[in-house]
């Protein structure tokens, strides 16, 4: 806040020294109050963002885990089914189980790439948002 050194408001010359002191005190008080409110607002925003991020992080975590497990299950079932059809127990089951695991890892990697893209897009937006705030 730059109110102290160049507080030459419009018509400051017409004010008596007493009024001027009072005016400046009121301005600085207002500045303090405004600063406090802004700090509270920022803290609240940060807290909200924290809990939202935590919730989203949890949902991403569960998503990755379920995708890994689902692919292993599908691979195992496919192998088991083919084994029953072709009578090649247990080789295709073993092969497809491993393939299923690979597919699961692929799912997780794709999900992670997407997560990264989402985050970088969002932080890009956040930086754009905070520019007007930097001016004071």
């Amino acid at each position: 806040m730059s109110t102290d050194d160049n507080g030459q408001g419009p018509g400051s010359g017409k004010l008596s020294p007493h009024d001027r002191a009072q005016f400046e005190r009121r301005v600085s008080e207002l500045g303090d109050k405004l600063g406090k409110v802004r700090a509270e607002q920022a803290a609240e925003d940060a807290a909200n963002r924290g809990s939202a991020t935590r919730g989203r992080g949890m949902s991403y975590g569960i998503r990755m885990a379920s995708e890994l497990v689902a692919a292993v299950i599908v691979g195992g079932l496919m192998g088991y089914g083919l084994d029953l059809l072709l009578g090649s127990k247990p080789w295709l089951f073993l092969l497809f189980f491993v393939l299923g695991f690979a597919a699961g890892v692929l799912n997780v990697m794709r999900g992670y790439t997407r997560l990264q893209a989402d985050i970088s897009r969002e932080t890009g937006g956040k930086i754009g948002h905070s520019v007007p705030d930097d001016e004071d």
Partner: protein
Amino acid sequence: MPDPIHQFEIKRLVPFDLFGLDATFTNSSLFMVLAAGIISGFLIVSMRGRSLVPTRLQSLSEILYEFVANMVRDTMGAGHGAMKYFPLVFTIFIFILTLNMLGMIPGFFTVTSHLAVTAGLALLVFVIVLAVGFAKNGVGFLKLFVPSGVPIYVLPLVVMIEIISFLSRPISHSVRLFANMLAGHITLKVFAGFIIMLLGAGGAYGVLAILPLTMATALTALEFLVAFLQAYVFAMLTCMYLNDALHPGH
């Protein structure tokens, strides 16, 4: 201790036989009908004014619309081709959201905590993705399973892995929603059961009941978040799968 699984019991309300198929109207069906009624009623009533300056209810529907429309545009591109699938995504999102939220009301049945329901929804999406994929791209849809730039000698292996990855989608899609709702409601019930047990034990144990009560309160808040988040994730993944169907070949 009260049985934490009891809340998921299917009750047969109106027995109904459809050509040998058991199509009984159950409490699950009742809550689905209720959800559909609430959604339709809300949207019809709130949009009745169609005013340029929205009323409170109307702006609520408009927020819902904007939310899902942005989700569709973000994942599938802003073209007209993407918005053609908006009705599907919106229906899925609001249906699951309403069912999840209805489940949060004490004594109400949570439809989405049954795998049959979530698997039905996931398979619906899966079949639509297949149909749209082949209708839009013909045989070109199979490019989804053949990533570009893979050496020919590992291609069969990669194609198998891609096929398994594709087939695993409806499973993870459905199990995620079902498991989240089931686990959340069981946890809530177990902690609520602890309160009753501690109070029932009497004396100094009663004071301890404050601990599970705190936990149950915190879990209820978490469950509301999960109820919304899972509906969002389900709709979001529907968009992503549809995007794959429209533009195969990563």
